[in-house]
């Protein structure tokens, strides 16, 4: 997993590329979410345009990020979800949990 963080209005966009599937990725993602919350940044968009596929472990990493942020009155929304990731969201009904966007502007606007 490679992770780049940038800000737009009051939201933080995390651009993830490569693999999101467990091992070190879980710790790294959790640490970043905690750091953002400490800094008072709780409106998160995870941009998955650079992630072709993910396993359920990777999905679990996002879920933990989501619940942590929600507990802190924030949110975690998904941007540019591939077909494969969408299939996982649907089959697990996690599509009802995660708000998903194809358009970055709309994702940012949803936090206004």
């Amino acid at each position: 997993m490679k992770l780049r963080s940038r800000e737009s209005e009051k939201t933080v966009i995390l651009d993830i590329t490569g693999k999101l599937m467990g091992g070190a990725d879980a710790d790294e993602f959790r640490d970043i979410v905690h750091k953002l919350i400490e800094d008072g940044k709780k409106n998160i968009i995870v941009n998955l345009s650079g992630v072709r596929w993910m396993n359920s472990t990777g999905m679990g990493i996002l879920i933990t990020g989501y619940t942590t942020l929600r507990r802190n009155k924030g949110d975690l929304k998904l941007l540019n979800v591939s077909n494969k990731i969408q299939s996982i969201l649907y089959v697990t009904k996690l599509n009802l949990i995660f708000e998903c966007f194809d358009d970055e502007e709309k994702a940012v606007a949803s936090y206004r």
Partner: protein
Amino acid sequence: MNETIIMQFPSSYQWLNMIDLICGEVTSEMGFSHSALNEISISVIEACTNALEHGNKSVEGTLVSVIFHRKQDQMVVEVFDSGEGFDYEDYLQHIPDPSDIHHQRGRGIYIMKAMMDSLIFEKLPDRGMKVTLIKNVDDVE
């Protein structure tokens, strides 16, 4: 037609991307539709994740084996590890709700069952698990 493809790789996450590529290639060469292809690939990745993580416990030197073959009206994928196995009969009776966000893990077997037409767990006679994933041909375009 003999269409058996065999693959063996070390118990490390880094090889799962290769498995995804191979699944895509094998299933499309065997004539599966794009959506069946995605479901097969996602499920084989789940089975391999379990094999390397829970089965082989990521121990250096252990290998995961994957065999793909087309059997008349079915695509059959077998995933082998060399671990101690688990009580799958009990687990299959109590698969947790995958939409429960209070659990970080525990969605792999649910996903495989939902996406495949058949999912078979077997303890190997000596040591290790064999997981068989079957997708029927009515998903073939």
